[in-house]
């Protein structure tokens, strides 16, 4: 059976979604590398520094999972806005995980880059 162009597009979209989702955990750990942030700051950083525009309903449950796994810790800090905010910071285990994942990512993307180089030339 031959795939129709519409289905083809759907497959590509799904692949992209999976790809982005797979990177989300690393992206969050990386956002926290420089220091503690609260949920909305993490979201804004993901949006400004990467293409990882994810729904807010995804990031908060994921943060709480990372906490159960011991990769991040959290604390409540009073803010000038008049309400406390929940700040997240990497634990030593979280830092280790971030470095591991970043290493894998760098190796993978550089080898993919080599593989994909001819495609870029063909496009021009």
């Amino acid at each position: 059976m031959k795939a129709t162009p519409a289905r083809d597009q759907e497959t590509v979209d799904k692949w992209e979604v999976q790809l982005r989702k797979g990177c989300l955990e690393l992206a969050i750990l990386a956002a926290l590398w420089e220091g503690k942030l609260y949920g909305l700051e993490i979201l804004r950083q993901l949006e400004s520094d990467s293409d990882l525009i994810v729904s807010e309903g995804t990031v908060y449950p994921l943060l709480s999972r990372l906490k159960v796994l011991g990769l991040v810790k959290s604390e409540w800090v009073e803010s000038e806005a008049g309400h406390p905010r929940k700040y997240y910071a990497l634990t030593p285990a979280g830092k280790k995980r971030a470095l591991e994942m970043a290493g894998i990512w760098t190796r993978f993307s550089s080898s993919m880059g080599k593989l994909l180089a001819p495609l870029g030339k063909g496009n021009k």
Partner: protein
Amino acid sequence: MTMADDVQQRDAQQSMEAYLGRLRRRLRGMNDEDAREIVEELRSHIRDKAAASGQVTASGVDAALAALGSPEELASQYLTDDLLARAEVSRSPVRILESLFRWASLSVAGFLVLLGSMVGYFLGVVFILVAALKSFHPRTAGVWVLPNGADDFNISVRLGFGSAPLEGREVLGWWIMPIGLAAGCALVMLTTRFAIWCVRQYRKSRALPRG
């Protein structure tokens, strides 16, 4: 502050509290402290988001709530994420069933996974029990083949309470002890894997990035 502003503020506050109340109810069963923290964190998020342009407005709150998705969907994500995280730490069937019960009240998928897991765990426990009870009920506990009409038969796993069936025979003898124990443990482990796999599939199908 004008009266209109006042009314707006009250409306904004009300829709936020209604949303958080619904979420809190859906998280019931989760550790109290965790559920409270989730609600507090989201309250803080909604306020920050709604006040991005200065004042907290009703439309700002509505937009923030819309971006979070429905409380049911959000609670589903928290509960399944919680289950996966805990499953990585401990594979206790009791824990998993506990989480599945909560999830089942939120989605059809959760209900089906709970049903399947209950059947799996139940069978596993029956096999383990038969193996354990064989030494107390040597003549009656075990796997029985019972005649059912002319050329039909039933296979029945019996714990051995009560008297032995009049017809039929017990097929495994003392072998039920190792076999029952192994089969029971395997069933329990496979069921746990099945449940975790289902939850992962569910999580993969949800939580789609926006845009």
